[in-house]
């Protein structure tokens, strides 16, 4: 997997400190490095959020050792405060940020192009185009960072992170760097007079980077003889371009400029490429960053080469590129001057979309059911602000349990806003344990301080579930699998000043409903911790230990089942099957949580006593 290759590359480069926060598609980079942490004397940690992780890595890099920070694109927004100032101080040991951008998006709240941050912070950006390159170039990214004393943005996407390929490994060079911190206030203390001086330094450094980009061997043009069209492609779209040309039989008719060191851009190389073609197509993901610069270079040198891409509609404006999408663009451009070139179209069959759901026995589904009952008891109205995690699958039918999902921690602050605005009815924020520790604590302190009348449900399943069950400070183990102090969510909530706190198990429907009602009735912020370990992860761990997993078995009494489908419609459990209008329980999926038995209106679901 690309993420394993990036991990390998970082280890080969002798990285000493690695910090990150999980996020698809980046997560496996850090967990892979963690497996070798002891062997190579590396410190590896899941931090509480990306800003914290970045600052840990940055601090380490100031001491002269190599440090790596891993994140998904959204985390770059979170760490950007630190990033922009760290570019002013610069680093000593190499500091690389691997950002895995979900550009489609496949599994994120937005699609984002973090390359803008490289321009904003004035730091180099490297975009490998395949798995092998990702492994090789991360080593180079560390060297580049040291040469320029700047953090380097190493930008990958899903098709590298989760792609597999044969990879040639190199030797692991254990780091010999000795950590030491040398006081240098004019550089590290960014008060305005010092910062003013560093602006010039930073501009100089990024100019030096431009010279390196100009001569980089992976910023290279392959000219096709007498080609009128040239494609400028960065990252994964480079490989798609080669494939598209191959499938269309156009390899000899189109030149390709591959860009890998993409900030700053090699302007001379681009100018020369422009001069040699009447049309240039830019294939990049996902914003027209290179395209805009290429257009401006063409304009500056007075060329009438036409630059095509996302901006003029020759490349679809949104989403990831694929070989067929690029192929279609190439053929369309060639067909302008050559009517013999056919523009291919491919039509995918139209079939119904499969809507994902929460897993069988998911405690989140049980929490949502209790929440629904509690809202009904309180006379309805209000709103449920959701947050990021498995529980945002609760938006899908049949649950349709949340009204918003925006960014980490926003559930609590947005609920506060709705409450202060005067929205009537209970306002409820729903947030997972990892998300609460990421960016939910400050919003809770804020809600208490400013007297928001809200109910906060912390759905505590003990893990960072959505991104693949990473441990967090509430899990009791760290990324190395060692026991680690467990934060007390209750004490934390109390320390924020919350006066009304209850802890329940969502598998007990009545108790959970009553707790939510009582929290809603409380004037001011109230918290319900709905605690039940994620059964998928719990069973996995116990099975690995060789434990026999036992749980109660439930069955439906078909005489009693009226086929009202209340259970299916209100918990949406995938273990519930419907045959000829009646419900049955699929023993291969059921994990015996017993929630369906508690809510069945005719009590048709019963535990089988062994």
């Amino acid at each position, binding site marked *: 997997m690309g993420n394993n290759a990036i991990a390998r590359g970082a280890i080969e480069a002798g990285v000493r400190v690695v910090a990150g926060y999980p996020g698809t598609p980046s997560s496996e980079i850090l967990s892979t490095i963690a497996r070798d942490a002891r062997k190579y004397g590396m410190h590896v940690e899941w931090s509480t959020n990306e800003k914290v992780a970045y600052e840990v890595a940055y601090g380490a890099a100031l001491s002269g050792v190599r440090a790596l920070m891993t994140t998904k694109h959204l985390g770059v927004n979170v760490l950007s405060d630190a990033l922009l100032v760290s570019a002013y101080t610069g680093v000593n040991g190499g500091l690389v940020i691997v950002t895995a951008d979900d550009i489609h998006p496949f599994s994120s709240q937005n699609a984002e192009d973090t390359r803008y941050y490289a321009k904003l912070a004035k730091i180099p950006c490297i975009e490998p185009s395949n798995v092998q390159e990702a492994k090789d170039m991360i080593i180079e990214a560390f060297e580049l960072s040291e040469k320029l004393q700047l953090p380097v943005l190493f930008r990958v996407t899903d098709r590298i992170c989760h792609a597999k390929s044969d990879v040639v490994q190199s030797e692991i060079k254990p780091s010999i760097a000795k950590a030491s911190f040398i006081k240098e206030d004019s550089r590290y203390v960014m008060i305005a007079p010092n910062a003013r001086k560093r602006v010039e330094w930073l501009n100089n450094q990024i100019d030096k980077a431009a010279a390196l980009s100009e001569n980089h061997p992976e910023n290279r043009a392959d000219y096709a003889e007498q080609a009128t069209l040239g494609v400028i492609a960065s990252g994964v779209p480079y490989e798609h371009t080669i494939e598209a040309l191959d499938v269309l039989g156009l390899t000899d008719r189109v030149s390709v400029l591959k860009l890998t060191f993409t900030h700053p851009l090699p302007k001379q190389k681009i100018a020369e490429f422009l001069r040699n073609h009447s049309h240039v197509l830019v294939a990049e993901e996902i914003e027209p960053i290179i395209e805009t610069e290429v257009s401006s270079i063409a304009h500056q040198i007075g060329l009438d080469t036409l630059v095509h891409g996302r901006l003029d509609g020759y490349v679809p404006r949104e989403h990831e590129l694929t070989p067929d999408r690029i192929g279609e663009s190439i053929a369309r451009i060639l067909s302008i001057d050559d009517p013999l070139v056919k523009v291919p179209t491919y039509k995918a069959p139209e079939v119904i979309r*499969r809507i994902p759901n929460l897993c069988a026995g998911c405690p989140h589904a049980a929490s949502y059911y209790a929440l629904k009952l509690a809202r009904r008891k309180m006379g309805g109205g209000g709103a449920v602000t959701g947050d990021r995690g498995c529980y945002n699958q609760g938006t899908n039918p049949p649950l349709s349990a949340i009204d918003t999902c925006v960014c980490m921690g926003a559930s609590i602050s947005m609920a506060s806003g709705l409450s202060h605005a005067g929205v009537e009815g209970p306002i409820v924020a729903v947030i997972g344990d990892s998300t609460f520790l990421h960016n939910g604590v400050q919003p809770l302190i804020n809600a208490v301080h400013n007297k928001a009348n809200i109910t906060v449900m912390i759905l505590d399943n003990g893990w960072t579930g959505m991104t693949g069950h990473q441990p967090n400070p509430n899990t009791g183990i760290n990324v190395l699998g060692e026991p680690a102090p467990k934060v007390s969510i209750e004490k934390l909530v109390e320390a924020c000043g919350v006066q009304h706190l209850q802890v329940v198990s969502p598998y007990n429907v009545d108790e959970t409903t009553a707790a939510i009602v009582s929290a809603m009735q409380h004037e001011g912020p109230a918290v319900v911790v709905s605690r039940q370990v994620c059964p998928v992860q719990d069973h996995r761990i116990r099975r690995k230990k060789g434990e026999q997993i036992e749980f109660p078995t439930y069955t439906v009494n078909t005489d009693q089942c009226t086929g009202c489908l209340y259970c299916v419609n209100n918990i949406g459990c995938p273990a519930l099957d419907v045959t000829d209008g009646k419900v049955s329980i699929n023993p291969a999926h059921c994990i015996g949580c017993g929630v369906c038995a508690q809510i069945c209106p005719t009590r048709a679901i019963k535990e089988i006593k062994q």
Partner: protein
Amino acid sequence: MPHKGNQGDKTMSFNMIITGIGGQGVVSAGTIIAEAALRDGLRIRNSDATGLAQRGGSVHSQIKIGENVKSTIVHPGTADVLLGFEPLEASRYAHLLKPDGIAIVNSKPVLPVTVKNGMMSYPLMDELKQIFDERSLKSIWVDALEACERLGNTRVLNSFMIGYMAAKAKLPIKIETLKETIMANVPKRTIELNLKAFDLGLQQGEEE
């Protein structure tokens, strides 16, 4: 007859896609096939789309084998094999097959909750087969779940399907290598069961 493999052929290229839903073992099947190809000395690219795998969403894995493989995405009209673990999810990707490609599909549907409660309707099996027929694509349908139930465990669906495919399609990978790779990739205590499923698939594929 089991295929002998295509080792050493520099122009050989083989593309396939495995489709299904979270929990069916699509990604591990992709890993097994890609890794087996590697073990046979071939170059590979493999990319998965697992978005919300654990939560019953669509999952697919694309595998490309050959000396000149580049992009990890299978270009429409270039797949030699579509291995479908679920009928709806197989039909969704019919356009990836090349004209003489072949779809091998487990015929047992997995119904989304929104179908169970009547919100949506699941296409008829004939409509799904029609998607291949109207494109003049060959599709073979097999009740793999029933076969796995005979083995007493539906979790070996993927090994059965790989075995069945090995009998029905011309793979550039040796049967023995596939078996070795299954052994290396599944949990120790399930090795025997997975090999049984593979053999059953192979046998059933050769007989049918």
